[in-house]
């Protein structure tokens, strides 16, 4: 093997064939990705074109007037922020703690497997079922009435499974070897969680959770029976008040009001999407900030 083979680096037929096949697959995957973002761009484009004209500071900061045909969306915007925030405050602690228990403490037995199965199934329950549950449990049984509290509790119950799943995934991304190294030194489970597991999963947990929960801003059914109203002249003062919400307002504006200017519902939809995108951007910015502080 002392003398170099002159044809050693020439592409053989097989090499060329492999290269062609590889390019074809790359193209296929690329096209699929394009297909994926096309509807997103179309939706956003339509909203901006048709609803952009409605957007103004006045639209964002005033209440609707004339049976919602004129005026703004302020009470609905504020109501949605209330609902999502309270739902976050309720579901995140419970969901995250439960996920830590399931992932770090619970053994692998039939009981935990049943809990995991229940969580997965709960995540698949249609939102209208959650709505009826919320109506029965929080509005009627616990006598919270139709209120932000009842609606947010309903949203919280609905998002709890995805919060648990997102948290568990972040926890399980921490290699087992790290835990074992820590246990080997005589650390308890909690010391290991606090010093090794959480510091390395907290960014994933928080951003995953915020992404999941911000999606509830668009939910309509679960809040319709439990706390959101078509119209109220009052802004909510506490969690025991009813409120307007963007999603329900969109439904009303788009289907229930005759003689509505077309740009109003598109404008409402644009505000709703912008709100969700803002929450997501905040969570992504937060993640980048944490990453910058603590590289791994």
């Amino acid at each position, binding site marked *: 093997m002392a003398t170099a083979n002159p044809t050693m680096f020439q592409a053989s037929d097989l090499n060329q064939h492999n290269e062609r096949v590889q390019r074809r697959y790359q193209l296929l995957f690329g096209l699929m990705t394009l297909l994926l973002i096309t509807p997103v761009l179309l939706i956003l484009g339509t909203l901006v074109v048709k609803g952009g004209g409605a957007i103004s500071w006045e639209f964002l900061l005033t209440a609707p007037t004339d049976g919602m045909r004129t005026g703004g969306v302020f009470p609905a915007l504020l109501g949605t922020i209330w609902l999502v925030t309270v739902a976050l405050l309720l579901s995140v602690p419970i969901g995250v703690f439960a996920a830590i228990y399931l992932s770090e403490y619970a053994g692998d037995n039939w009981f935990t497997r049943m809990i995991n199965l229940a969580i997965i199934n709960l995540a698949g329950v249609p939102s209208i079922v959650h709505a009826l549950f919320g109506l029965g449990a929080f509005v009627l049984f616990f006598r919270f009435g139709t209120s932000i509290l009842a609606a947010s509790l309903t949203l919280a119950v609905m998002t709890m499974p995805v919060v648990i799943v997102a948290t568990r995934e972040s926890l399980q991304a921490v290699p087992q070897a790290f835990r*074992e190294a*820590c246990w*080997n*030194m*005589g650390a308890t489970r909690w010391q290991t969680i606090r*010093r090794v597991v959480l510091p390395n999963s907290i960014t994933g947990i928080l951003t995953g959770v915020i992404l999941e929960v911000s999606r509830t801003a668009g939910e309509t059914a679960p809040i319709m029976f439990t706390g959101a109203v078509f119209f109220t002249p009052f802004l909510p003062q506490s969690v025991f008040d009813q409120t307007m919400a963007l999603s329900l307002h969109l439904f009303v504006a788009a289907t229930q009001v005759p003689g509505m200017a077309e740009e109003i519902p598109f404008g409402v939809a644009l505000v709703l999407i912008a709100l969700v995108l803002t929450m997501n951007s905040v969570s992504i910015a937060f993640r980048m900030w944490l990453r910058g502080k603590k590289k791994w």
Partner: protein
Amino acid sequence: MVSSGAAAVASDTGAPADNFPSKLEIRNLTIRYGHTVALRGVNLAVREHEIFGIIGPANAGKTSLLKAINRMDVFTSGMKVDGEIRFNGRDTSRLSNVYALRSRIGVVFPLPVGLPMTVYDNVALSPRLRGIKSKADLDVIVQRCLTRAALWDEVKDRLHALGSLLSGGQQQRLTIARALSQEPDLLMLDEFSIAVDPVTTMRIEDVLKELRQEVTILLVTNLVQQARRLADRTAFFLNGECVEVGVTEDLFTGEVKDQRTRDYVEGRFG
């Protein structure tokens, strides 16, 4: 001090002589994973301040033994340990506080695990778990342990860089420094030199020889010559069985009781 005396009691394998208090006594130890038997009826005793070598081919049950000593079996599903392990005279299966046991035993596994925190925090972790908070105290411990593990000179300027970004060999020495930071009674090393270059291996071996003054060392190794260089006594494990325990030099000079030991030591195996 032990190495010269060890030859005098070369004959014994199980129970140690009176003048050598045993740090670790293992009686009739059997380890199973489901239906697989990893270790079968092993008896041996490790004396205080000796380096005890364990050699043997893959699948011999060496790593399983270390896990059982450290009571890590509770974290391995399906692992079942029968028999008795006495550490400092106490039956480890009856200890109510396994955390105290583990904190007195330093373990170094074959593949280095640099925890995803700074070099400093890696070494300060165990002292912190013990409740040491003062920065000055921690500084002293960190420097001492890193120096001992032959790593200080390489990392003294990057103590606050991530430990997991060190090279493989450096991470292994970091793991050793972390084990030393536990101020252990017993140091167990499992094929520590797999990921370390020969020069560094030699430096670590020198460190181990010095450490013998303070801690008892259980050294599992695939390199029989490493056992010869370091161990006062050596056990030969084969397929879950402890074939022979003897003074290391005897095993290497052919004074063995079992032909299989001679074959393995001389590299005529399988």
